[in-house]
């Protein structure tokens, strides 16, 4: 360890190269229908004019990402032609030749370069004490937590999606805010919004932060806002950046008069409250409570069995779910719940801003709040909270504890995503290695500050082991698998929902009780 500068680079490239090679090994693994979704988008952007992109419906997987992502697919499609031009025919549904698989997989692996770069920038931003042991250095731990993130690996490189690129842009934007380059951060985020609109969930955090900490240039001594410090110039520049990005993205469609069509594709509210497999959020608990009350009601003869809506929970592809006892939930209700759940965090950031770290905390809470209360949430959306939260987890012990609970339950809830027997060992092994690493390294990092987890938390997390054994190994061998295939999924999402919601509550408690003196002092001493 003689030359610190080169050494720093070596370990980082070792981590990045290692994970990239692992991704290459997963090329022949199972891929979900999302693979076909993206192939279809390649085909339709390549062979159709812009005006038909959001009208095309040969495949059931219509284009439902914002325009920049369509342009991204358009760019990729030109490279795809070198591999196998057959995949670019819109009619060629479910086409998956070896060259197609190779190309699509490689496109994910290569675009992950953005993610790798963003992680590097984040590692530079993290408060880092030089320790003798590399394995105990916060930046090393952070880089591993991000680059080798279990959820990202299985969602992108087995299940198939382009989250690496998107989270790369998000993390880069966060890193820019950490570095004080706010305009760049805002620019990156508006690009991100035009790549995938799911990031609308965290827009409130961005909006309030930029307004409070960027447009208002200074605060009073008690951290309250100094109204006269509002900078019109900054506000205008910011607005210009954001508006021009959106104009570039949606402008052509406005000119074509297609905006309503584009929006109807982007926000398909016809989908149900919960995804086919319930994300571990409050609605999973709500559904189960409803089911339990129904069964109870029927047993006590309070309910008429013929009046109960049929097949509301058979675990298949139920779209609009109706509840039998509890009131049915409307999209508007979920929206209100979501807003209410994140409002305190936003208000707190307005009145007691704490720089980029406070912003990041608020962003995580927005992501988590919308995950818990949102409409038709996918289990994959938990990554939006886990990945940014990794940055805070390596700086403070309390965060490390919450982070560990959140990642472990969140990652475990991704297990049903991969249901093929062939991938079972890989998902278990990767999950185990990530969990063992994150637990031991965080424990070591904060070894002076007492225990990372309380006994009950540890017992709850260890409960995932028997749960996993039963759901993944034992249950599929029983006869119930045929008649009640949804039971493991239901139990998994309910069990994980408890952990996720608990983490959310702990985050709120931490936000309101903890004065960030510790981190501030550390930052100042830097």
């Amino acid at each position: 360890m003689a030359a610190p500068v080169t050494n720093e680079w070596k370990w980082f490239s070792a981590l990045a190269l290692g994970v990239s090679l692992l991704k290459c090994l997963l090329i022949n693994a199972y891929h979900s229908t999302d693979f076909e979704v993206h192939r279809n988008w390649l085909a339709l952007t390549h062979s159709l004019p812009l005006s038909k992109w959001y009208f095309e419906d040969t495949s059931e997987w219509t284009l439902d990402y914002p325009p920049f992502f369509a342009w991204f697919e358009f760019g990729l499609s030109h490279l795809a032609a070198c591999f196998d031009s057959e995949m670019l025919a819109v009619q060629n549904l479910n086409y998956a030749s070896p060259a197609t698989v190779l190309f699509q997989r490689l496109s994910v692996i290569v675009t992950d370069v953005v993610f790798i770069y963003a992680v590097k920038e984040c590692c530079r931003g993290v408060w880092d004490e030089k320790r003798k042991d590399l394995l105990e250095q916060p930046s090393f731990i952070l880089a591993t937590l991000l680059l080798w993130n279990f959820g990202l690996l299985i969602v992108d490189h087995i299940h198939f999606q382009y989250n690496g690129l998107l989270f790369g842009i998000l993390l880069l934007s966060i890193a820019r805010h950490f570095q004080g380059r706010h305009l760049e951060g805002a620019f990156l985020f508006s690009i991100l919004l035009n790549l995938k609109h799911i990031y609308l969930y965290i827009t409130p955090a961005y909006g309030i932060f930029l307004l409070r900490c960027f447009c208002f240039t200074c605060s009073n001594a008690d951290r309250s806002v100094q109204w006269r410090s509002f900078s019109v110039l900054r506000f205008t520049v910011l607005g210009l950046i954001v508006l021009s990005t959106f104009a570039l993205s949606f402008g052509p469609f406005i000119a074509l008069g297609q905006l309503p069509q584009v929006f109807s594709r982007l926000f398909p509210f016809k989908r149900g409250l919960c995804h086919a497999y319930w994300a571990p959020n409050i609605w999973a608990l709500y559904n189960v409570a409803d089911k339990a009350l129904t069964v109870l009601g029927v047993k006590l003869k309070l309910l008429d069995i013929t009046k109960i809506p049929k097949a509301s929970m058979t675990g298949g592809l139920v779209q609009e779910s109706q509840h039998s006892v509890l009131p049915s939930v409307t999209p508007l209700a979920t929206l209100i719940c979501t807003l209410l759940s994140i409002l305190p965090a936003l208000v707190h950031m307005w009145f007691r801003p704490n720089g980029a770290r406070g912003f990041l905390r608020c962003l995580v809470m927005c992501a988590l709040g919308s995950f818990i209360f949102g409409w038709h949430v996918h289990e994959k959306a938990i990554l939006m909270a886990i990945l940014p939260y990794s940055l805070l987890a390596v700086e403070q012990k309390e965060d490390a504890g919450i982070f560990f609970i959140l990642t472990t339950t969140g990652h475990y809830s991704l297990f049903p995503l991969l249901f093929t027997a062939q991938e079972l060992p890989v998902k278990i092994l990767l999950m185990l290695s990530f969990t063992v690493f994150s637990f031991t390294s965080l424990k070591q990092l904060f070894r002076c500050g007492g225990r990372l987890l309380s006994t009950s938390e540890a017992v709850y997390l260890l409960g995932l082991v028997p749960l996993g054994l039963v759901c993944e190994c034992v249950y599929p061998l029983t006869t119930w698998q045929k008649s009640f295939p949804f039971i493991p999924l239901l139990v998994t999402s309910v069990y994980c929902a408890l952990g996720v919601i608990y983490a959310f509550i702990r985050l709120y408690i931490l936000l309101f009780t903890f004065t960030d003196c510790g981190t501030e002092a550390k930052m100042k001493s830097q």
Partner: protein
Amino acid sequence: METWSLISVCVFLGLTTRWAVSFNSYSGAGKPPMFGDYEAQRHWQEVTVNLPVHEWYFNTTDNDLNYWGLDYPPLTAYHSLLCAHVAKLIDPTWVELYASRGHESPSHKLFMRATVFIADLVIYIPAVLLYCFYLRDGSAKRRVAVALCILLYPGLILIDYGHFQYNSVSLGLALWAVVGLGLGQDLLGSVAFSLALNYKQMELYHSLPFFCYLLGKCVKQGLTGRGLFLLLKLSVTVLLTFALCWLPFLSDPGQVLQVLCRVFPVGRGLFEDKVANTWCSLNVLIKIRTILPSQIQLLCSFVLTLLAALPSSVKLLAKPTLWQLKLALVNSSLAFFLFSYHVHEKSILLPALPVCLLINDLPLMSIWFLLVSNFSMLPLFMKDGLLMPYVVTTLGFLFFSVYLLSALERTTVAELRLESYQRLTHACLPTLNLCSVVKWKFFLSLVGMAALSLASMLLDPPAALPDLFPVLISVFSFLHFLGLFVYFNLVQLTEPSGRKNQKKAN
């Protein structure tokens, strides 16, 4: 981080790599009528579970030896039988007599891969961990790094999880023997090695060093007193282990003879396909197989093998230490690989195992050897459709072993264990900067391997020389093996007596 978590993360990574490689194709996938090693292993399950023991090795109406007849020693057959019983539980059509021939299905592939995985997990991986944590000195982190490098050696992973074989069983048992001897448990070691030998006859490549080590130890303790007692104990143990393995065949000498005939197929020629040993490489210049009668070929290879293995064995006999044992294992198995009769390209895994054990002592040379050994099997991998995993695992191994073991920094004369050699040649040869020469050669060889790999992947060979690339690869690898054979012999033979670190290693 605590050592246990580092170890478990390493093991998980090794296992993930293995399982991810197994997603790929296997030998003979969808290639009737003979298929490949995958079908051979499946066929053995079919034979052993359906036929009585005394028909296993005989050509009978129900057992066609020309269709992947059993040609491994009894322990392999028992292992097949065990797997077959499990297979029968899951799906009896997988091992039905006759009807299951050429059976291929995703679920069956999954089952076969799982059998390899379990065997590996039970035998090979614990042995590697034990070796790294009981027999090595150095910091915990260094030990973990060594374990990771050994676990990531691509040759073994690609052959077992790609091509399809159970090398991790025989090599794992041999490694258990090394661990046993290293820990002073000589009886345990000899049992483990006897089992290895009874699993795969190719373990004979390793037999001379084990024999010499144990004999040397007996001699050291005095052949009239305690040494004799130890010798007796060892021979009884080995004989008992062998008897146990061969029990069902012992009733009839004809059975034993037939098994031996199957296990040592003398009639199969000096070499097969393209293999990076002396005979195949000489064949480029002289067509030995047509010039010499097969009896002479056999004799020739036998004598040369013995001569090549002799120096290291004698040295080991005189100095039975663990360090010498490891080097002798390399030298003897390389001698067998280079000169013995009917060698397969996969047999390079036998020298590769002891070289793995040297990876911390002689990092650069070991990594070099392991890379070339993996490269020498490239034509096989290409035939099996394993290009992608080959490239990925090779790059991963190259990068991580060089980085984690700081192989390029540890290249002084002392670290290459060449001081005595340099002292000897000091008088007659001009002094060279040995380290940079070695490093340059290493880089050149890497470039050569990369170029040959790329050429055989991308270029079509000229019509007149359809085997151009396989031949080039085997000759290229042969030259490396020969050079490294000389090097490892030099290290072993010139080891000065009573070195400090060797004392510690014992």
